[in-house]
């Protein structure tokens, strides 16, 4: 501690005296200059008038705000040059109220600047540190109190208290356990499964391979999603099931994630980004690149949806598809790996 420039007791120092008293700042306030309103009664009256006009205008705007609020229906729209068609109530109430508030502020400041005394005053600072004696006695008293309590000497009492206190927050943690269920296998499975048909999103039409031409893009869901949502009334399944179905000419398709997972160049991939879960559908059908709008991870759908750019580390899971006896596109199975962002147990 000796090599620190600490000055006990008096923490307020005059500015450091490195090159002697030259460093003492010029210690006189500049002379006070009188304002026009201080000398000239006409100027003072003018300022007074300006201030009161602002306050009166504010009062007028307040009244106008009340009138606009009551008189303008909320669904009335006006065309304002430059801003387009806008909600009349928002514009009128907001403008009048804003002016009413602003004018009080402007008036008050103008008043303070022109008419209130503008001579700067000086106040002195005092050290925050108490005297050495007081500090010493406080330290002594605390020590004494500690001794009287026996906190230091009665080890068993101290340790048992600390144990009790350390355990006490645990119930709060236990309470948190019921904030939600324990994860089971939900993150690894979706509504897709063997024979589940593909339907368009959001219109729910069944899809056939001949609906697609090279370059087509369709956002799709499993056919059973609709019934599931009718029953469960939440979006949990929808957050995992969405797929993108695209068609490219079979020779463009360089690789798929499994043998026979495409159907004549039609491939289906999870629409949920493997980075942090944004839905991705920015598909460029000539490069087969798929860009995530959130963090720009880019996947190559012609090459097993491998990552070609950005922060995502894993390819998009592919959904193996086929056609059923009625000619509709179906899934061969669920995804073979968890969709969406990584999680610890994913492995």
């Amino acid at each position: 501690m000796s090599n620190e420039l600490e000055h006990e007791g008096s923490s307020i120092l005059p500015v450091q005296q490195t090159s002697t008293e030259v460093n003492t700042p010029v210690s006189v306030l500049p002379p006070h200059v009188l304002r026009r309103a201080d000398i000239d009664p006409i100027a003072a009256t003018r300022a007074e008038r300006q201030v009161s006009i602002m306050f009166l205008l504010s009062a007028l705007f307040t009244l106008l705000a009340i009138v606009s609020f009551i008189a303008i229906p909320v669904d009335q729209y006006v065309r304002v040059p430059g801003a387009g068609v806008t909600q009349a109530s928002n514009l009128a109430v907001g403008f009048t109220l804003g002016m009413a508030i602003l004018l009080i502020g402007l008036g008050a400041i103008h008043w303070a600047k022109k008419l209130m005394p503008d001579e700067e005053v000086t106040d002195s600072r005092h050290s925050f540190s108490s005297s050495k004696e007081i500090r010493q006695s406080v330290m002594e008293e605390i020590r004494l109190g500690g001794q009287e309590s026996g906190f230091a000497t009665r080890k068993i009492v101290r340790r048992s208290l600390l144990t009790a206190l350390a355990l006490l927050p645990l119930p709060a943690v236990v309470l948190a356990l019921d904030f939600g269920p324990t994860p089971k296998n939900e993150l690894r499975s979706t509504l897709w499964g063997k024979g589940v048909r593909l339907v368009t999103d959001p219109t729910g039409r069944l899809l056939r391979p001949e609906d697609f031409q090279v370059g087509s893009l369709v956002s799709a869901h499993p056919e059973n999603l609709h019934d599931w949502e009718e029953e469960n009334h939440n979006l949990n399944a929808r957050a995992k099931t969405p797929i993108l179905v695209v068609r490219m000419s079979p020779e463009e398709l360089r690789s798929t994630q499994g043998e026979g997972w495409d159907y004549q160049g039609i491939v289906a991939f999870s629409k949920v980004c493997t980075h942090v879960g944004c839905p991705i559908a920015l598909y460029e059908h000539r490069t087969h690149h798929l860009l995530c709008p959130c963090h720009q991870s880019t996947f190559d759908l012609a090459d097993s949806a491998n990552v070609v750019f950005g922060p995502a580390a894993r390819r998009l899971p592919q959904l193996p598809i086929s056609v059923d006896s009625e000619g509709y596109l179906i899934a061969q199975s669920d995804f073979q790996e968890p969709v969406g962002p990584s999680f610890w147990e994913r492995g």
Partner: protein
Amino acid sequence: MSNSVNQGPIDKSIDGTVKYLDDRFSTAGFIKRNMRKVFPDHWSFMLGEIALYSFIILLLSGTYLTFFYKPSMLEIVYDGSYLPLKGIKMSEAYASTLEISFDVRGGLLMRQIHHWAALLFVASVSIHLLRVFFTGAFRKPREINWLIGTGLLTLAIFEGFSGYSLPDDLLSGTGLRIASGIVLAIPVVGTYASYLVFGGEFPGLDFMSRLYTIHVLLIPGILLGLITAHLMMVWYQKHTQYPGPGRTNNNVVGYPLLPVYMAKAGGFFFIVFGILVLVSALVTINPIWAYGPYIPDQVTAGSQPDWYIGWLDGSTRLMPNWEITIPGLFTLSLNVLIPTLILPGLMFTILGLYPWIEQWITGDKRAHHLLERPRNNPNRTGLGVMALTFYAILWISGGNDIIAQMLNLSINAITITMRAMLIIAPPIAFVITKRICLSLQHKDKELLLHGEPTGRLLRLPSGEFIEIHEPVSDAKRAVLLSRTELPMLPVPASHDANGVKTPNLWAKKLQRRLSHWWSVDQVPLPTVAELESATEHTLHELSEAQEQGVELTKDTPAPTSNH
């Protein structure tokens, strides 16, 4: 004063109130001490006030919004007055936000005031923080208030993000989806944490009501408490002031609380409030109706967070795709963890501890009430600009898609450039800033020694021409002389006088080395002798000039040399 001669009704009521309160709480002493409390006046001292006022406006407008908003994720079919969404399925939360916007008079105005005020709150806190940093206002005795300020900024960002998420529109839902991805990335407990937060799988039905309580009760409560503590400390320790004539480390110069400061601060509240209301009347913010309801399989191009999350979005965009997977065991998503949790955690920790870090380096434990000009502490200023550059690059990267679109650039090229810039630019910014500071120090010394050039030439008897210099004005001189030379720690002794080895010698050596680096470049202040001879020289020059009949701009000043 107490027994005024003019006993009008106002005097009577003042007397009555003072007596009434004093009889019960002995408040007269407190009021006497504080009524004429002096506050220095400078525009940069009002940045914190903007933050305080926008917080008050947030409380007012937010309370109003709670009367209409329904924090429910229950799915309903919209049947309100906004036609483009009629018959669409959406959450009650989103539907009630549409109702506020289209069916409640003044509802849209309040929503816009609330959102603009929220953006302004975080922005003014940040700019206020920069002012405090670059002027060294965080130094002893104000370190703890700096720490509270850091906490306030962190909470403000969380509060902002939670509010951004409540409408449950497509944009905010996408933000929550990202948040859930971040929670999932936490090592070991991420999946469990995510299930606890969302009440099961994302998005579930519980989250909005939980977030709502956090947004309207928990965080505002803590914010309120911390803001109160922040202000009480400013009040008790008195405000810092800029150097100038008559301003020392031992006084505070400004206007008394009653009436001038009260009028100015009160007036400024109305100005901030008024401008926010006007902006809300004229400029759209967060048009949730245009985004549509949140559905986990929909997304819009240009998905962006509000400005204060932009830098984290940027860090996530710039991050290389590092992920460690041990099949059958675990997956560690460094590509998510580093930019969204580790980096901000580190940055805010360094930010909060900065006063102590600088104190440790310089060993300066004196109390400072006079603000330091940024140039007079080149390393601090340099570090600040370096951090700002780092932040700015992350921030710009958060909008790389919008930039690519507006300037017709390649998003990939921007990302790759920014990755390189993130590493290269901050150190360059540090070096440049430090050099600028040092050359400004040189200039200041020149001014003190040789005065200000007047632009008038003087012919010396030798035939040589010199430019006449005038001594700097008293006001400027006071500012220039306010500089405190940066202290340098002595080399630590390896053993003390009794031959005992110094504990933690390596740390002390490091500290000494850093302290040396911190102060070694500074331009030494002129000594008394130098100043005196310089003054003499200038005066001599001036008198010679007068002899030759050179007209001067003002009367030959008598330089303040009371030595």
